[in-house]
């Protein structure tokens, strides 16, 4: 009980201390967007007859005619009330857009991370058990390939083989077959919503849709995870406590999994946390290739057309998620290595 309380306290303290950083991110993105060349008013006044007057109307609508400090004050006030502004691109409130799109990104990223971990940790362990062997080289080759091929190439390749040639995969257009009926939205995660609704066919359809993009993303991140597992396992396997465990005749499984792996897992958790945050924001290519309605492709589209509010909202969201993921990693440290709680 005491340790859980301490962990929570520590998490809470960490969260509070990250608030100034979040505020900094908010102000910085706001200023950065306005420093970038590219005037949203001009871009969006692009009807075949839009002239000076239309541009001025849009500028007024966006509040861009006010001085910068005023704009910032208004923005901060709005963010404080949970209003992230309105996107010109989609015509919707940014908070609503992000709320709809975040579950899509999270579902994809979490699945990809799960696939990557389930593949990478055993691969890393295998490689570490026989360093220099054929298995080790095989793992190394696989990892190098995964990291060398850019995600949009592997994505298009997977689509070509599994959708176009073999026809196993459903058409790569978003989270669910366009003709299917959606379950009532409870969590926003289709996989969970279908289960809650008891619709197994729907669940299977959503899972199939998820498979290719998740694989594409997983391929790219297996390498860092497997390499770090291998390196950390090597250290762990060569340490005194494993030698002792071996000498007292403990079973192979106990030595490798309970003693070596548990001690080796800390850096893997750290990397997994970083990988997750990066994937969530940087998987824009995968989202584009698979028409996945996620937050990253949303932010990129907005950036290209200088649509300020969505980009600012996206950066704020990412910063918040980064803080939360780091907290989570901290908590996991405590579980993996009880000494971390004291430190």
């Amino acid at each position, binding site marked *: 009980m005491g340790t859980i309380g301490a962990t929570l306290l520590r998490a809470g303290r960490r969260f509070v201390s990250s608030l100034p950083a979040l505020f900094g991110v908010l102000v910085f993105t706001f200023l950065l967007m306005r420093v970038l060349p590219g005037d949203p008013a001009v871009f969006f006044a692009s009807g075949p007859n839009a002239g000076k007057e239309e541009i001025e109307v849009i500028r007024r609508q966006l509040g861009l005619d006010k001085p910068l400090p005023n704009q910032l004050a208004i923005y901060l006030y709005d963010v404080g009330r949970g209003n992230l502004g309105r996107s010109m691109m989609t*015509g919707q409130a940014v908070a609503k857009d992000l709320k709809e799109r975040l579950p899509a990104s999270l579902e994809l990223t979490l699945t990809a991370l799960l696939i990557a971990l389930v593949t990478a940790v055993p691969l890393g362990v295998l490689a570490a058990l026989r360093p220099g062997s054929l298995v080790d080289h095989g793992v190394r080759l696989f990892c190098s390939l995964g990291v060398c091929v850019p995600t949009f190439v592997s994505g298009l390749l997977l689509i*070509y083989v599994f959708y176009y040639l073999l026809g196993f995969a459903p058409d790569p257009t978003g989270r669910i077959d366009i003709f299917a009926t959606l379950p009532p939205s409870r969590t926003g995660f289709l996989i969970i919503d279908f289960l809650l609704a008891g619709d197994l066919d729907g669940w299977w359809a959503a899972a199939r849709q998820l498979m290719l993009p998740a694989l594409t993303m997983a391929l790219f991140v297996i390498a860092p995870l497997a390499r770090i597992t291998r390196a950390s396992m090597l250290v762990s396997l060569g340490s005194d406590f494993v030698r002792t465990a071996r000498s007292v005749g403990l079973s192979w499984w106990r030595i490798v999994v309970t003693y070596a792996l548990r001690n080796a897992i800390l850096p893997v958790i750290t990397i997994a946390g970083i990988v997750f945050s990066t994937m969530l924001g940087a998987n824009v290519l995968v989202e*584009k290739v698979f028409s996945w309605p996620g937050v990253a492709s949303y932010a990129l589209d907005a950036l290209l057309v200088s649509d300020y509010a969505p980009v600012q909202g996206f950066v704020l969201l990412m910063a918040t998620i980064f803080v939360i993921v780091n907290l989570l990693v901290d908590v996991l440290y405590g579980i993996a290595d009880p000494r971390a709680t004291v430190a």
Partner: protein
Amino acid sequence: MSIEMSKRSLFAATALLAVTLAAPSAFAQSRAETLRYVTGATVNTLDPNIPGSTREAFALSMSSYDRLVSFGRKLLNGKWVFDLDTITGELAESYSVSADGLKITFKLRPDAKFQDGSPVTAEDVKWSLDRCVTAPILGKAQLLTGSLTSADQFKVIDPLTIEVTLPKPDKLALPNLATVYPIIINSKLAKAHATAEDPWALNWTKENAAGSGAYIVETFKPGEQVIAKRNEAWNRGTPDKPAAFKRLIIQSVPEPATRANLVERGDADLVIDLQASDVQSLEGKGKLKVISTPQYNAVTFISMNNTIPPFDNVNVRRAIAFALPYDDMFKAALFGRGAPLYGATWADGKPPSGGYPIPQPIKLDLEKAKAYLKEAGMPDGFSTTFSFNVGQAATAEPMAALVKEQLGKIGIKVDIQKLPDAQMSTAINEKKLPFFIEGIVAWLPSTDYFYRNFYTGKQRWNYSSTDNAELEKIAQEARFEADKAKYEEQGKALNAIHFDQMFQIPIWQAAQDAVMQPTVDGYVYQFTRQVDYRNLSRK
């Protein structure tokens, strides 16, 4: 007992079999009655008047709203395209233009109903047109081009008659009412959602369609998809029937290669924005129907800012016009898909027609280019930048490389500048780019319209920053010229000035490649450069 059981289970099994067999065929049937259209762009509003509306939003509004009138269609080189000269009634059963051309009277269809079942009245028409010329929306600038500027011009005569008054006879007034913006809105419904700050209910119409159109929007997810069902009561199509497809799916698929796969596998029915290389290969395989229509109301330019040195020198502009590798660019960028606007021969150097755009007598001729450069006093060339936007990189990138290579041969050093779309439009608006690729499009493509909008004034669309008093005078006169022969002469004069001054170089009209399943029928190239879903049916 056991026999009873087996009978029952046999019955159950048969029923189950019947259900499983029936399910796919019911699905197949609904699939055949559904049009699935995939696009790289997205519908961002249900009201096409909202500033920032995308072209896909325009296309949807053609089906979700009706206008008073609509354009007919004609065959151009064997392909159906919209016809500016045939204007038929849509919500108007008939219309008449007074002898002096100052009054247009519309009789509304007595059977026309909004999608909520209430009748379409002259009051609704008046409110909608008033909104179009009064509210701060896109329709205002468009209707201005047809002398429609004030709410006083629209008068309700009786519940089914409305009269439009013009300050002078303007031949673009009627066609303007067939464009995207003057949608007829259910005014009672819209007024119920109006507020003090938003008297025209713009915030509400952005996300709610309140029209009488052929399709009723069911799901609207900006950036993802729009699903609409057929309005069974709609009879404004040419054959007085509802639209052919029962359901319409407009889906955003950003990756062009994926769109090509979808249509090739038969999962999508129609796509119009594939990469030229994909169209080429799909056409080669011969399984799909490909209709390529040169976008005859659009032009791609290599533009020069006539106020930035050295492009303020007419001989420099002429030198560029004779130094570009037109054929190579046409092949590399478009795979030859489109209508070239170069390489013509004009007998005795005079423009053969008063249309716009017409093929120019320019071609790659380095000797001539060098001579012009010498005349400009720059025999050794100069340095400049050449810009294009990221959104057009697929076609513009190979063009830019060829321009750089070719101009290098006459001593002009070119730096290629690739700008994000918003930056590019800002730079063009501020007249900061000396030399760049850009395109124009006109919904109502007449010669005077092109010259008035794209060659005059300090506004964004005057890419070349042309300021030519003679050109402006002729174009303004031509606007209200009723005599066809005179208009043709004015057009020729404008074309002659354009060629002589070489403000910018029209290079081609890219084709719109509509790739569709062989069963899809009725495709017409529209002024919006989008699909009008009401045209389509399945054989």
